[in-house]
């Protein structure tokens, strides 16, 4: 177990907003600190992505008028904020800070950013070899889905089960973007975006943001809410491997075993899992690679409502990126929802007697290079 606890969380509820990226983060930070029973002056560690905006932490620290003794701008895609929890715990254990604030804000929807289908060119060296071919985020996940189907016989209907589960949960979340139930048939008959991924295999595009407060356990007794324990955290990057890659194995295959070993829990102990769902295939691959089922058996594993509330492994109880919100990098919401579940604050979508939750963020694309970050969290 890490010597750090999660003391406060907040998810900015608006899906379309007129507020700025910085203002979203300020409102989220204020609310997460209030949730913890802490004040802005208590913050001495600060974490955000380096693109949020400009040079990242510089802009937000300035706007929030913070004076952190520890600063981290780790930017590894949508999983970044999950990794920030890992880094915050390490910094706290090392005595570099006591109250770590993680923030995120984005106006992807109101800015008209087509997150999934825009040209995925980042100004990197590899652009000259990859950027010539019409790459988009959805296309680079579709390549993995297609191969998964070819090698293991996974079907579009099986992938659709994941979207159906998330939508059902979104129906129980008053602030989710899409709340009307959908069926497997709705998903497989929705327009093809990049084969074999249909429109409803893809996450939504929203504005949004949030904040998480990680603190030293010594502070826990003074908190307003029961602290959530960090039982384990792990991160990894899987990449093109110089042209020798098995794209059916994700970074979760590295982080999962490390996280389970550190936490000393088994898969059966996990009461709910928040699995980054940029696309349905992301969830299927992650569940396999974390070891919830054998590689290749994910299609059968997700059938029969197993991932829905009342099933053996309810995932993404807020509706996930597939139905609730996805402002571009939604890892922070995985942490927020897991913490709320462990505190029993989820109302209609509460997992009964939720004691242990798993969070896994995926950032980048499964079809080229991506990061994976896993947390296992426990009720106090």
């Amino acid at each position: 177990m890490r010597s750090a606890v999660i003391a406060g969380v907040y998810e900015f509820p608006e899906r379309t907003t007129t507020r700025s990226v910085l203002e979203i983060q300020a409102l989220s930070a204020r609310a997460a600190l209030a949730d913890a029973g802490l004040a802005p002056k208590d913050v001495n560690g600060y974490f955000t992505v380096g693109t949020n905006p400009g040079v990242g932490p510089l802009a937000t620290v300035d706007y929030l008028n913070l004076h952190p003794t520890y600063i981290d701008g780790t930017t590894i895609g949508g999983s970044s904020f999950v990794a920030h929890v890992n880094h915050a715990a390490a910094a706290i254990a090392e005595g570099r800070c006591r109250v770590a604030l993680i923030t995120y804000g984005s106006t992807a929807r109101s800015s008209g950013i087509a997150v999934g289908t825009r040209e995925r060119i980042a100004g990197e060296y590899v652009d000259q070899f990859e950027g010539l071919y019409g790459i988009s985020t959805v296309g680079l996940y579709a390549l993995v889905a297609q191969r998964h189907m070819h090698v293991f016989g996974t079907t579009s209907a099986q992938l659709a089960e994941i979207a159906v589960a998330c939508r059902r949960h979104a129906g129980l979340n008053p602030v989710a973007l899409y709340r009307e139930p959908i069926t497997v048939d709705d998903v497989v008959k929705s327009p093809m975006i990049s084969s074999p991924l249909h429109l409803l295999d893809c996450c939504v595009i929203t504005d949004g943001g949030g904040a998480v407060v990680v603190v030293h356990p010594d502070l826990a007794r003074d908190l307003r809410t029961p602290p959530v324990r960090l039982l384990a955290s792990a991160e990894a990057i899987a990449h093109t491997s110089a042209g020798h890659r098995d794209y059916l194995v994700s970074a979760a295959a590295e982080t999962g075993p490390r996280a389970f070993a550190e936490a000393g829990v088994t898969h059966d102990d996990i009461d709910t899992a928040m699995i980054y769902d940029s696309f349905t295939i992301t969830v299927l691959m992650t569940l396999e690679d974390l070891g919830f089922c054998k590689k290749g058996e994910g299609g059968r594993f997700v059938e029969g409502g197993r991932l829905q509330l009342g099933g053996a492994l309810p995932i993404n109880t807020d509706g996930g990126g597939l139905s609730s919100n996805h402002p571009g990098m939604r890892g922070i919401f995985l942490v927020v929802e897991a913490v709320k579940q462990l505190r029993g604050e989820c109302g209609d979508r509460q997992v009964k007697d939720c004691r242990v939750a798993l969070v896994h963020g995926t950032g980048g694309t499964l079809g080229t290079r991506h990061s994976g970050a896993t947390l296992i969290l426990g009720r106090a």
Partner: protein
Amino acid sequence: MAEYTKPLPEITPESRPFWQGCKRHQFLVQRCRACGARQHYPRGVCASCWSQDLEWLPSSGRATVYSFTVTHRTQARGFRDELPYVLAWVELEEGVQVLTNLVGCDPATLAIGMPVRVTFEDVNADVSIPRFTPA
């Protein structure tokens, strides 16, 4: 010739031999003289041992499809006017994977494992873009 509206490579000194090879319609693969590893994309060091002692080998240009996706919706420059198009990973006979397009084929006939060969589009005096087509 119609104007080429898709992205063009920003060729750098370490990648120039690769693009010169494409100009000659040869798909070059790097091999490390120190450890023998082959790699793609090309770079200034061996990805296995970080040696700088690399050589450029002409590949056969023959490959098999590792995976593909038929793209029906995109904002990508040039491609959004040519929907649908095929993005793919292919595996060269020399053992390295290459991200590319599959061209000159009916998307409905594509399959993972099918044989393909390299083809080059001469875009301008400096650039020929490698793509793959059914063998």
